């Protein structure tokens, strides 16, 4: 249909030039025909190969309901929603809930906390695996290397609940960290109740959890570096430090750049579940982030529409970050996610 109207406009403009009108008309017919035949070939393909296409049915239903369904469900951010009422809310309220959070000082505090926490996490969690991989790379004993590596992955496999339990146990007044603190200062610190300590605790635990696992890709990249480069450098009299600086680091640079860009892309997606388990009202000042705030607003205070508006805002920023990071990555390293 669309094709025909554009065809009509072209005809009008070129009135008097009969030949051209005919050409346009035949082109229009051709596009309709190819469209129809494309549809037909698809149908034939499906009919002939229906077993292959049948495999798609359940996964696509799953994606539509459980992934795209909630995306559409975000309309409740623009509508008044009553818990227990209609799934898509009661009436349109426009940008009411968005204005609400823009004028909400708590929101701006959690927004700031999210940026700071995301920033510090990136600053520490990104370089640590690289340093760890480089140190491990200098170990000649295969057994020791394997042992260190295997042990370093371990925290990655634990439930967040266990990790939170460990954090609370270690930072408790009678925990091991306070035993050391008391030994040196004679006093104990109630870490988990103190807003000043929250970021340190969070980032340390993130490093603890992710360092070994994050090193896997770097270690793999390190094995691909050509040994002859090192041999040549040795003959030129370069010491180990110079070799690292001029051969090893450039060798893993593409991996570093790619992972850095990916990390920047997902930098707002901080460990919501962990914070939910280790924060408390005493530390909200520094520990409350967008996702924990919207959790409380939505599921604890039943303010669904308001929380959905905050969530939508967060998702869109996240998407923009990922897309930007990805296009930068494509330009710089010719590697991208898709």
């Amino acid at each position: 249909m669309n094709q025909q109207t554009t065809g009509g406009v072209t005809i009008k403009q070129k009135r008097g030039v009969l030949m051209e009108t005919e050409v346009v008309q035949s082109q229009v017919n051709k596009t309709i025909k190819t469209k129809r035949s494309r549809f037909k070939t698809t149908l034939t393909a499906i009919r002939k190969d229906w077993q292959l296409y049948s495999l798609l049915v359940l996964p696509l239903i799953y994606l539509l309901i459980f992934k795209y369904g909630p995306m559409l469900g975000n309309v409740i951010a623009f509508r008044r929603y009553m818990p227990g009422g209609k799934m898509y809310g009661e009436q349109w309220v426009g940008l009411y809930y968005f204005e609400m959070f823009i004028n909400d000082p708590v929101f701006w505090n959690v927004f700031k906390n999210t940026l700071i926490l995301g920033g510090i996490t990136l600053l520490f969690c990104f370089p640590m695996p690289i340093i760890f991989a480089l140190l491990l790379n200098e170990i000649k004993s295969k057994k020791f290397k394997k042992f260190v590596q295997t042990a370093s992955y371990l925290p990655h496999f634990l439930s967040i609940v266990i990790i939170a339990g460990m954090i609370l146990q270690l930072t408790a007044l009678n925990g091991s960290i306070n035993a050391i603190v008391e030994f040196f200062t004679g006093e104990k610190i109630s870490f988990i109740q103190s807003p000043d300590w929250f970021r340190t605790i969070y980032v340390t635990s993130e490093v603890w959890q992710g360092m070994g696992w994050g090193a896997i890709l770097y270690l793999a990249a390190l094995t691909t570096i050509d040994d002859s480069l090192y041999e040549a450098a040795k003959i030129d009299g370069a010491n180990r430090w110079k070799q690292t600086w001029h051969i090893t680091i450039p060798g893993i640079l593409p991996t570093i750049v790619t992972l850095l860009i990916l990390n920047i892309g997902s930098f707002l997606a901080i460990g919501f579940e962990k914070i939910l388990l280790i924060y408390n009202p005493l530390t909200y000042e520094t520990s409350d982030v967008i996702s924990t705030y919207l959790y409380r607003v939505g599921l604890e205070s039943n303010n669904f529409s308001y929380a959905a508006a905050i969530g939508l805002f967060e998702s869109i920023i996240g998407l923009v970050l990922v897309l930007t990071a990805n296009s930068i990555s494509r330009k710089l390293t010719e590697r991208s996610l898709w």
Partner: protein
Amino acid sequence: MKESKQYKIFKVFNVCILLIIIFCTLYPFINVVAQSFSSESYINSGQVNLFPKGFNVETYQKVLSDTMFWINYKNTVVYTVVGTIISMFLTTIFAYALSKRRLVGRRFLTVFAVFTMFFNGGLIPNYVLINALGFANTMWAIVIPGAISIYNMLIMKSFFENMPEELEEAAAIDGLNTYGILLKIVLPLSKAVIATMVLFYAVAYWNSWFSAFIYLDKKELFPVTIYLRNMIAGTTSGMSAGATSADNLTQISANIKSVTMVLTILPILTVYPFVQKYFVSGVMLGSIK
């Protein structure tokens, strides 16, 4: 080959640093195990660090005799098994279909799936949906919403894509249909990637707690992670967070918490040395994509 003196010093230094790193990595585990065998009074006075003090196994007996612990532990096993089966089924058929070049609209469908990795509906719409579907307080709230991990699907897809096509063509000539080819030819050749995916999913289900936390409020349905969460929730003041049973569990002693943690980590710890290489290979596969 001569090594400079500085490099020799560095090597010693390096081994020390790595040992310290490993000690710090393992310390929380050691501490939990030590506390689980210690008596409460020593823990409360802050004397239990590396080794148990006031050694006893009574705490283990206490936790193991709690029927709710067993019910919740059994739930975790059920959710893990059922969830992994559903996930593997959906992921495999999706990845296989998308790996075929002859599939019309393959590119579009892949983008359709990958887009959901970067933009999700968010907590609230998901919550509304699961409740509208009547999944609240059922196992389905745990095992269905996250059934397909697109990341895992992409790993499998690229594995299938790298399989020699001749095998499948030969099987087709022999009269096998698509289902037959997938079941009898492709899957037996994909044992490595299947093992990796099963582990990825199983660990994720074993460790999951948040969906159980927001969708379940019957104690008999809790996985063991929620049992544990409600215990540790007592330590941070004001963690009322919608937990129905947290309030009457606030005064849980530290050794009971430690025992529960040990018992929850134990299955992962026992299989870990044997399966960790599959995890590593999974990460590598994912990065090649």
